[in-house]
């Protein structure tokens, strides 16, 4: 009898705080946001139900459509980012001199925080910054641009920073996946006179297909949540605002809680789709 009670006691005491934390800081807020998104709440007074008006506004007003268009740039740069990370992982997967040095250098960007990365790339994209200086030095003055002032170039420029900042994560994931491929597969291929490129196309890629797909989805859910770089570098100016920057602005500066909630829910839905597909893929590969 005593044992049963002490069992119950430990289960309850060990779970109670973390579960309350979970409810208060994740579930209640997201449910509240769903409800708020259907109102015109402005931070004070009683929220008035206005149906889907907030959502309608977000998908029709150009000011808000732009937010999602900006995210597309971040998704687009994920393509070269993933290719680069994959090639790196293939090359690093092996035994050779300098392996640890290369690995050590290649992981640096992933360890730096948003403020550091932003400063580095302010210097990089400035008019007399690193990029323009290099272009001039190699005789390509014609390609010099005002990367951060030009309304056309600013979004692709700062989106491309993601390549530098995040390829490390993809690289580590690909590398981890490649290491799980049994080496007999490669040995058999080598015996059959298989070229390295064929090996990659017919063994490596199919074997890590799952991880590849997970990385793509990771980029999608990351792109919709972009915040730090455009906020720190540009403060969202020059048309670089993203959904998350707008959520904060609407909620904390304009007091449009209803609209901020609707935008939060839109981001949430996109993340749910991406992460849902992702866990579906991870489960499927297990059998």
């Amino acid at each position, binding site marked *: 009898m005593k044992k049963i009670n002490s069992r119950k006691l430990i289960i309850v005491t060990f779970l109670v705080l*973390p579960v309350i934390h979970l409810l208060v800081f*994740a579930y209640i807020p997201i449910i509240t946001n769903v409800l708020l998104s259907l109102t015109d709440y402005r931070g004070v007074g009683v929220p008035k139900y206005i149906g889907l008006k907030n959502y309608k506004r977000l998908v029709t007003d150009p000011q808000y459509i732009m937010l999602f268009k900006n995210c597309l740039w971040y998704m687009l740069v994920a393509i070269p980012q993933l290719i680069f990370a994959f090639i790196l992982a293939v090359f690093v997967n092996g035994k050779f001199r300098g392996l640890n040095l290369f690995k050590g250098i290649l992981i640096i960007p992933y360890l730096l*925080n948003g403020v550091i990365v932003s400063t580095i790339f302010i210097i990089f994209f400035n008019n007399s910054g*690193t990029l323009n200086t290099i272009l001039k030095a190699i005789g390509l003055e014609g390609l010099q641009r005002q990367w951060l002032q030009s309304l056309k170039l600013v979004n692709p420029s700062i989106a491309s920073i993601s390549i*530098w900042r995040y390829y490390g994560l993809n690289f580590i994931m690909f590398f981890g996946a490649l290491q799980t491929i049994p080496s007999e597969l490669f040995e058999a291929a080598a015996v059959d006179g298989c070229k390295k490129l064929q090996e990659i196309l017919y063994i490596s890629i199919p074997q890590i297909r799952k991880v590849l797909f997970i990385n793509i989805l990771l980029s999608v859910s990351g792109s919709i949540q972009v915040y*730090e770089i455009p906020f720190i570098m540009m403060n969202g100016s020059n048309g670089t605002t993203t959904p998350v920057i707008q959520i904060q602005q609407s909620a904390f500066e304009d007091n449009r809680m209803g609209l901020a909630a609707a935008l939060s829910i839109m981001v949430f839905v996109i993340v749910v789709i991406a*992460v849902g597909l992702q866990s579906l893929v991870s489960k499927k590969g297990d059998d």
Partner: protein
Amino acid sequence: MIWESKLYKVSRYIFLTAACIFVIIPIIPLVFMALKTGAEYSSTSVLTPPKNWLNTYNFKYAIKVGKLGKALLNTAILLTISLTLQIVFTSMVSYVLHRFDFKGKKIVMTLFTLTMFIPVVTTQTVVFQIIYRMRLVNKMASVILLYSGVGIVGIYIMLNLLSSISKELDESALIDGASYFRIFRSIIFPLLRPACTTMLILNGIGYYNDFFIPNLYLRKDVQTFTVALYKFFGNTATPFEIVAAAILLGIVPIGIAYLLLQRYIFYGLAGAIKS
């Protein structure tokens, strides 16, 4: 051993060297800038090396004006408390979820799992109201509270390890009259150390680098290191070579941690992602 042609080996070195250049080139001007004097900075190109490689003026100035020492101390306190709480709570939750069967276990597990669908950025406007009503805004407790929640990645890492810890250990201790709490404290928790290390590294880096949460909740007196750097960066009155020095100082703690923990970081990350 996998056979590699000479061409392959050569192209590997070429590609990897190019990749390292791609990584390092944007960082070089930052280092140069931090070592230049104000006059030198405005008169030379970003890729011109500094005249005096041992110019420490900018660093001293940055530390003094930016109150970086205090901010670093704040970050250290914040990380120590949050990570300790988080690791202890995560191991408690994982222990119960792994070793006991009880009504509602599935629900609890599902609740934890589904949090991966709820990114922090989509709930912060409401969470801010909650923290505000708790009167914790601009207090370190706000960030500690948010950071010490139990995450699903941590639970997975711990559950993985728990399945390799024999249940007979628990049972024989139980027969010897030990309480469940005692079993957790003296047997399970010490054996979970590798998982704790992984979590410490992963979340330590994540929290050290986090900007979103501390920038939202700690706007006044208490600043974390990252927010202090941001304030420095955002202040247009600060000469840019000083900003560069401050930023470079921001890399130092991460650099030291990285050099000490290099092996763990790489495989910790890879392992955490796999599980």
